[in-house]
Every structure is written in C-alpha cells, then in structure tokens.
C-alpha cells in the first residue's frame, strides 16, 4: 500500500508527486493538483463528468488510478481556454446556451474534443451517439448537440 512517485504532465505543466495506488486520477487532479475543472459525478464510469484526455485519448478519470498515469500527458478542461479567451468549442457552447448548471460541461467539452478528432460527426444522430455516454441532469442535450454541430461547422440536418 506504499505510496509511489509519479511524473505527469498536466496541461503542459510537469508535476512530480507521491500517490497512494488507490488514488483515482480524478481525485489526483482535483485534490492533489487543485485542478477542480474536472468534475466527479458517479464515480463508476457512467456519467462522463470526469472525462479528460490521456495521451490525447478521452478517458474517464474515475476509472484510472493516478499511478497508471505515470509518464502520461493529461489534458483537462483547463487546457481548452480561459474566460477571456475561449477556444472554438467553448465559444460554440457559450453561443448556443449549451450549459445550464455547468456540472456536466467539462466532460461534455473533453468528450466532444476527442469525438471531433476521431469521427466526422456528419449527422445529428452521430453527435447524439457520441455524446450518449455523458449525462446532463439539466437535460439540456438539444443545446449541447447544437453547440457541437456548430463547432464542427455544419448546418442543421434537413428534416427527413
């Protein structure tokens, strides 16, 4: 149960910390590093709120131990932009009212970031399918889909 030393790069900053093996990556980011942008919802991989990028790929940070991230490059919602200078996806969320309480937003943004890199998101169905692993308890899904559609640079689906 002894603590282990790890080195991780989070949002471009290198950290060296000693962690207990059972410490979840989500708790490491929030409690050890103080990066509270990553939210913790269900803690069993269902809600998607804690989604971050690990070496460029989205992952649920409640389903990884910090010790496993040794040597990894982590990106959290804090990497996307600042209040004064949001990135294009954040701008689209702002523009389309894609957040209400904001709890799910970090996970939505990090998930959408990976989805946009890996899939064409050529239809609203594909966007909905991609976001289906992220829960919004305000149920503001329609606006989130609109924001991602805008970020992809696509017009609304024609009614079928």
């Amino acid at each position: 149960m002894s603590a282990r030393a790890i080195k991780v790069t989070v949002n471009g900053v290198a950290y060296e910390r000693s962690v207990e093996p059972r410490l979840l990556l989500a708790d490491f980011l929030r409690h050890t590093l103080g990066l509270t942008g990553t939210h913790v919802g269900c803690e069993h991989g269902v809600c998607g709120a804690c989604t971050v990028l690990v070496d460029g790929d989205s992952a649920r940070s409640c389903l990884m131990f910090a010790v496993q991230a040794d040597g990894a490059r982590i990106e959290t919602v804090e990497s996307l932009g600042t209040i004064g200078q949001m990135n294009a996806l954040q701008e689209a969320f702002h523009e389309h009212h894609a957040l209400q309480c904001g709890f799910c937003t970090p996970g939505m943004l990090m998930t959408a970031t990976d989805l946009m890199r890996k899939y064409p998101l050529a239809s609203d169905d594909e966007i909905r399918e991609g976001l289906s692993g992220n829960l919004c308890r305000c149920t503001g899904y329609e606006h989130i889909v609109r924001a991602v559609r805008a970020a992809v640079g696509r017009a609304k689906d024609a009614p079928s």
Partner: protein
Amino acid sequence: MKPVAFDYVLAESIDTTVAALAAAGGEAKILAGGQSLVPMLNFRLLRPAILVDINRIPDLAFIDERADHIAIGALTRHYRLETSPIIAEHFPVVAEAMRHVAHLAIRNRGTIGGSLSHADPAAELPMLALLLDATLHVVSPTGPRAIAAWDFFLGPLTVDLAADEMLTRVTIPKLPPVTGWSFVEVARRTGDFALAAVAVTLTLRDGLIGEARIAMTGIDETPKRADEAEALLAGRKLTADLIDAAIAAVRANVNPPTDLHASSDYRRHLIGVLTGRALADAWRRAGGEKP
C-alpha cells in the same frame, strides 16, 4: 465510492504477471483497461489485496494477419478493433459491433482480453468470440493453454480461467469467401449493454447456405450459439418461411432473464425479431437471392 487500499504491481511481462498472480494465492486481480474492474473496486464489490497492472507489457496489443487466421493481443483496445483495416477486411461484423460497445472514452481504454475475461452476459465481444469460433490463449506459471470460445464462458462473469492464469491472445480463423454477415442490437441507450443482440454469418455454396452461424447475447447467463436454427438453415436457400422457422427455433431454445429493463418474454420476442433481421441482412450481403 473509493477502492480499498491495495498493493500495486506494475508487470513487465506475461511471466511476471502470472508469477505475481500465483504468489498472491487468489488475492490478486489483473488490471487491464479497468473499465469494468474499477467500477467494481469503487463500489467495493471487489477487494483484491493486489492489482497487477499489465498496461505496460510490451507486445501485448496487436492485430496481426497470418495465413489462415487473425491474432489479436489481449491488451488491444476496443477503439483499435473498431478502426483496424485488418478487422474491417476480415471481420466487418466485429467492426460494426464495436460501435455498440460502450462509449468512445471507454473504447479508448477497454481491452478485448478484459472484456472476454470479465464475460458480462450482455457484452458484445464474448458473443463475437463464439460466432467466429475464436480460440483463447492463456498462460499460467505452468505453461500455455488454448481454449475454444465454446468452452470458455461458464456463467455470468465466470470463465474458464484459474486465479493464476492470464488471457494473452485471441486467434480467429478467417472466414471463407462469399460470407455475408450482420450484427443487430437493441439497447435502451446507445452504448449501454444490450437488451439483446444477434450476430450472424452465412457462408454460401452454390447459391445455398453452406454454413450458418448465429450468436446471441443478453438472452441467458452466457452468450450462446443458436445450434438448432443453424442446423435448420444449412443446405437451404433463405426464404421467408425458413426465416420464420429459424426464429421459432431460436425462441424455443433461449432462457432470457427478467430485469428492470425488460421481461423474459420481451427479450424472447426481441431475440426472434433480431434473428430475422440479421439473417436477411447477412443473406443480402452474401449476394443471395431476395428471400
């Protein structure tokens, strides 16, 4: 909602993994993608004394084409199966099914070895292993062993793996030419575990079904092949009547569970509907005449 404390072993090789498992005398678990294991740890449904992390073992994630089969390393992630050109060419049914496996963030981490060893009775990969007559290769401190997928799944979350054994590789024989395929699933939400799913391959010979394979999940304690329906189909041309007969045979031979999401009767009905659709799809893809 936090795991109990455990000792963490970062494995360097398959040999050191099985040695650590054996030394722990049943108190250790392998940590691969962690997408099923870590929720169980967080809920404290599992309290292993030791976790053996295999994520850094070299050469454990691969998809290799051989003369008559495809070999897949146990640490191969779902996303790689979903996007592999080799899988798309030889087993398009797998590529199609992978889109139904959970969500991208989980497919990025989850592994084929983990899914097969975990053996959720509603998961897609165990049924695909059955469909494709896969062989599972495991290693223990006393040496390697090969198990037919047919013999591997014993019950819900229960497989033929001893506490000191590790699944290292899956081999899948290539399908004959003129094989049509289909994968159909109904889940309450995209990416959820299946209420029921059916995968089919139909290999045509002289315009008739030479070999039919039907695998099902969500309908019993383990995934199953529909032996009776497969036997009915062999040597015949697919017609509407034959589809109905296959559906009846499937419904008569499954024992679906009732749970919060669906009753046993509903699942039995559903498995028949999905079987009919999958057979018609596979027949069409194989180039058969319209049924």
